[in-house]
């Protein structure tokens, strides 16, 4: 039981980090970013490529920079340049972007699975009360918590965070007050891509590296974001942890094969009972 809970929290923390990226973009652009997972995937491949010439830390730095730049560039160069873009059109644009990214990865790195070198090992384990935790799990849990804390500080304690909150509350008013909204959006996309990349690097040692390895984690993060409420940052964290624990318990006690199906079924029930998510704001529509 304790073991399942611990595993669930560790996976859930990674879902939370992915969900945070989705929520950040949704709060500002009112847009689901379907390229979130693929951006992270490309960045993790960059780590794999650069870790030989630059060493692991250097490669991570390059990849994080590249992912941030790529996310910001897509927001600035494509999404904001499209005239007359409807929201469905923007969703299709991100779907197209995700195809471009995974297609590019397929061409550059090939379709076969590669092991991902990571300084933390999943074989070395520690005993923790009645449960066993691997070095990798412990490390990813710590990194996820650090990222969450960093995001909290960024949003609550800095001027940029204040601007992001203002923009998500009322884009028009924020623009009128003189906030550089286009740069702000690009910055948000960059931060989201950075979060996704961090989560991707922690997942890659377990799932191995191939052009579609982020698809399932991305869908899980998406589910977690909806569970917690798409416009709520704490909601994304709660949703991710909850989803991780539920999945781990279900896999442990009921069935391993239908885990994903169950998580989606839970979402449907959840949405029917409380459509705005656990911590989301209640919908208000002015007619």
């Amino acid at each position, binding site marked *: 039981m304790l073991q399942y809970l611990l595993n669930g929290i560790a996976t859930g923390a990674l879902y939370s980090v992915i969900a945070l990226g989705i929520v950040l973009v*949704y709060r500002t652009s*009112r847009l*689901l970013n379907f390229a979130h997972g693929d951006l992270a995937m490309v960045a993790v491949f960059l780590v794999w490529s650069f870790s030989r010439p630059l060493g692991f830390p250097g490669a991570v730095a390059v990849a994080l920079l590249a992912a941030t730049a790529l996310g910001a560039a897509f927001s600035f160069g*494509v999404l904001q*340049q*499209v*005239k*007359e*873009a*409807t*929201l*469905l*059109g923007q*969703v*299709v*644009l991100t*779907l*197209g*972007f*995700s*195809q*471009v*990214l*995974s*297609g*590019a990865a*397929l*061409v550059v790195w090939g*379709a076969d699975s590669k092991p991902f070198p990571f300084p933390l090992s999943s074989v070395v384990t520690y005993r923790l009360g009645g449960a066993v935790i691997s070095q990798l799990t412990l490390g990813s849990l710590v990194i996820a918590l650090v990222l969450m804390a960093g995001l909290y500080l960024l949003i609550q304690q800095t001027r940029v965070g204040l601007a992001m909150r203002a923009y998500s509350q009322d884009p028009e008013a924020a623009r009128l007050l003189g906030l550089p909204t286009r740069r702000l959006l690009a910055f948000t996309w960059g931060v989201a891509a950075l979060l996704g990349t961090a989560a991707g690097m922690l997942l890659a040692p377990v799932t191995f590296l191939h052009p579609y390895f982020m*698809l399932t984690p991305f*869908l899980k993060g*998406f*589910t977690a974001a*909806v569970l917690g409420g*798409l416009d709520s940052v704490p909601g994304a964290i709660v949703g991710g942890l909850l989803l991780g624990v539920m999945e781990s318990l279900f896999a442990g006690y009921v069935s391993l*094969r*239908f885990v*994903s*199906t169950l998580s*989606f*079924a839970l*979402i*449907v029930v959840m*949405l*029917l009972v409380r*459509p705005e998510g656990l911590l989301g704001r209640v919908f208000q*529509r002015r*007619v």
Partner: protein
Amino acid sequence: MIIIRPWPQQGRIGGAMDLRRSYREEMALVRGWSGWLAVIALTAALAVLPFLLSGYLVYVVTHLVIQALVAVGLNLLVGYTGQISLGHVGFFAIGAYGAAHGLVTFQLPLPVALAGAGLGAAAAGYLVGLPALRLSGPYLSIVTLGFGIAVHQVLTNWPAVSGGRIGLFVPRPALGPWPLTGDRAVYFLVLGVGLLLILAAYNLTRSHVGRAWIAIRESDLAAQATGVNLRRYKTLAFGVSAFYAGVAGGLAAILIGYLEPQMFTFVESVSFLAMVVVGGLGTIPGGILGGLLIGAIPYLFSSLRQWLPLVFGLIIMAVMIVEPWGLYGRWLKIRRYFKSWPL
């Protein structure tokens, strides 16, 4: 909330130079001698086509028509009713496996198996449509996405239905006394069913049902206030759209003759959605065009299989950037230009 409004100028594009003298003229599907000429020429071309092409190309064209059929059905949901679906491959899979088991396991006649495939998918569509009464935009997209993934997972983990690792083989069935042995026979079956369903879609969108759907798309609250029964028409849109996907799935099972769960992944749903958007939202020719073109990409790049997702994504992005109303919207603009030429 996703608001879809790519239609503001459509009335102006289409109606600018048309003059109607009677109600019957307004109701006609085909207008004027040029319209009839185009219809006759198209029908003749479609009838002669399989005799001009080699066997493999007949197979390809048939596959494209099947995909166009899915796109037309999806357009009724996304383009006309304004509801998003990211799990349409689920309905397609239900239709494919339904028809396959109807033909192989239960030895049903072909029309019954196809209708059963469509109706089974439509029932699933009705169920997926129920949450749509309370959800919109991203929340609805995750429910439909989850449905598509759930269908895929159930197929992967249920060997009795999917045939396990070997897959499921579907021998070519017979339509009454005629066995559909060659690709040419299947082409005519698909063409017949397809034209019937496309005609039905035209008539459906011109009827009170279509007007109710468009009203829901523009504003579901306003539609409800003017007396549109949201529960009935939203679930109906999901049901009809799923019916199209189901029948197309059944036809695909007959054409390909082999089914495995890997044919029904999330990527397929994305490609169906891309067909609708690239072709043109809220128009029936748009669905057909998009289905034929997006469906053709994998065949055009078959020798460069690795490059396929990249090219696919670039085409989607390029169309969205250059022409957000889709190819049919571009065609309408061109037609308007020449109608009012030289002004």
